[in-house]
């Protein structure tokens, strides 16, 4: 099912969903960045804004059009909606000489993610695999995921740090959405919309629309083709699994360790990073504690800490852990790559470490050897 929407029809999407009492979370401008937050109107979309990204750099600039999705990706990802930054799993209360446990099953409202980039759709699929695809299911995530409704928006504006084309996750979403839009800005501003699920089709049926002509689909293809071409291939993933495992003690890790601050920004900004700490937070009265699941990062010493010390004491070991996990061992663990090429780790690294450059540096010596 396919149709064309006028820009004004986006308001209808928000209206229809809010009438159903769903939350609508979408990109919006706040604090000089495009963030994801609940919106009440399509007017809150980042109309006429673009993001200019470089390693360690992000700023918003005005566009010379009224594009609704004329940017690449912001600092946040949908991870914060699905894998909550902090979630109370249990309350453990003292009871007589024993204790009682209250399980906190998440209760979430149906939520539409409006404006999910193809790389982010891919990231959600990866987290599905990790958190609800194994022998144990994270119920908090499952609840939020089951209540999610994905409106993807294909990408026409990749930033300088984007490399989804290299990772095979974009700039066009192939599946994993309920609805997908492509914003066309070739003189007549319009959106090609396609339904990916029955529920998506139901929503589409409620929207004011025009039939999609051949010219519209061709124009939409052009948008993502141009984006793909602009990005090019900047990370060769064909043999990266074996490349990194064969070079675990590569001197490049010493080099990157001189730059890396182990600040954890990359892991927090990453849409696939799933590591969490399970902390017991005790009440002051000593009568109970909350068991809380929080985002954690492999860049901290505490992450690998056991009595007698941490496994990864040096920054280079922590960077290596992160890099090989993303591009190599994630595959062994979950049968998928852990990187979608969104570029957030590059943009939001305070010193601009670029995952693509680090892999290329390792590859360069490998090629020199062979």
């Amino acid at each position: 099912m396919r149709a064309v929407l006028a820009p004004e029809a986006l308001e209808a999407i928000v209206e229809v969903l809010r009438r159903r009492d769903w939350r609508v979370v979408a990109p919006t401008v706040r604090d000089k960045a495009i963030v994801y937050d609940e919106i009440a109107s399509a007017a809150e979309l980042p109309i006429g804004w673009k993001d200019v990204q470089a390693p360690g750099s992000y700023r918003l600039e005005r566009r010379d059009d009224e594009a609704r999705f004329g940017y690449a990706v912001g600092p946040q990802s949908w991870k914060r909606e699905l894998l909550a930054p902090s979630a109370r799993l249990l309350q453990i209360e003292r009871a007589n000489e024993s204790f009682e446990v209250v399980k906190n099953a998440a209760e979430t409202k149906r939520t539409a993610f409006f404006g999910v980039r193809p790389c982010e759709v891919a990231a959600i699929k990866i987290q599905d695999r990790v958190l609800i695809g194994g022998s144990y299911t994270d119920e908090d995530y499952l609840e939020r995921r089951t209540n999610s409704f994905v409106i993807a928006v294909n990408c026409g504006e990749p930033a300088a740090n984007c490399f989804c084309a290299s990772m095979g996750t974009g700039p066009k979403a192939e599946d994993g959405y309920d609805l997908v839009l492509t914003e066309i800005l070739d003189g007549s501003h319009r959106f090609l919309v396609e339904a990916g699920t029955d529920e998506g089709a139901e929503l589409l049926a409620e929207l004011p629309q025009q039939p999609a002509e051949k010219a519209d689909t061709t124009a939409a293809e052009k948008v993502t083709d141009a984006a793909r071409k602009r990005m090019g291939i900047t990370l060769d993933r064909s043999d990266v699994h074996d490349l990194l495992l064969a070079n675990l003690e590569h001197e490049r890790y010493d080099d990157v360790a001189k730059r890396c601050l182990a600040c954890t920004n990359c892991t927090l900004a990453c849409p696939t990073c799933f590591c969490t700490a399970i902390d017991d937070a005790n009440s002051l009265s000593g009568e109970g504690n909350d068991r809380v699941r929080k985002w954690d990062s492999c860049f901290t010493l505490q992450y690998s800490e056991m009595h007698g010390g941490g496994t990864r004491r040096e920054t280079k070991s922590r960077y290596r852990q992160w890099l090989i996990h993303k591009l190599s061992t994630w595959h062994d663990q979950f049968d998928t790559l852990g990187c979608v090429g969104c570029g957030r780790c590059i943009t939001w690294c305070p010193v601009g470490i670029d995952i693509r450059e680090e892999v290329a540096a390792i590859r360069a010596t490998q090629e020199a050897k062979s």
Partner: protein
Amino acid sequence: MAQTLTETAGSLEAMTPVPYAVTATRQDTYDTWTLELEPVNGAPIVPGPGQFNMLYAFGVGEVPISNAGNFETDERLVHTIRAVGAVTKALCAAEVGTVIGVRGPFGNTWPIEDAKGKDVVIVAGGIGLPPLRPAIYHVLKNRKDYGRFVLLYGARTPSDMVFLDEVKSWQSNYDVDLDLIVDAGDTDWKGKVGLVTKLIPPANFDADVAKGFIVGPEIMMKFVAQELMNRDLPAESIYVSMERTMRCGVGLCGHCQVGPTLICRDGAVYTWAEVEKLLAVKEL
């Protein structure tokens, strides 16, 4: 949402500590205690040899501890704990009647079925003996199903050895080649002194038909595995129990990964062939 999700075990249930009452405590060494546990309500869990539980001290926190029970004859949970951190200190301070939380069992087991008809060589270092105790009792109980049974136990000093009387009773009651060694002893110590690897060259087993189980600190397991390989025991026949930080126990939190593997999900028992290269990389 767009894709079908498979129904599997829920993490919330697995993350919920179940109240168990301490029914007996014993101080094994100056810093190590053994707790026996029975559920406050209902039937106890029955772990396999090599599996671990997450033990929760109320208001303090949770740690992974191997099962040390003799599950051949006794359903009580047994955990031997060394007081090294806040949680383990709280657990070791538990008295009879104290209620602690248990969740598990998690992880895989020693390949005791595969070892049937074969020689079994068990090498334990320090407090590495308790995680092997369920497997030892299995072999002793089913002694005729196994070939030669070699049990080598090393510790820093004689006073660091746990269950020493019990270990000696195995020697007097069963057909087991027991050898003990310490880094340093005193003149009352009748066993050997030196590195634990010294016990391996003269040990009585046939490398062609033997399985080796090792538990101890990583460094000790490295030396022991190497010495077993010097006896021509293949790396595929040597099993070790790995240890890393654990938080969830069910493969979701990411902490226990070592390269391609998550210890709580894929281990903690691995063949030496699986982990030798990983452990050779510093801080992997």
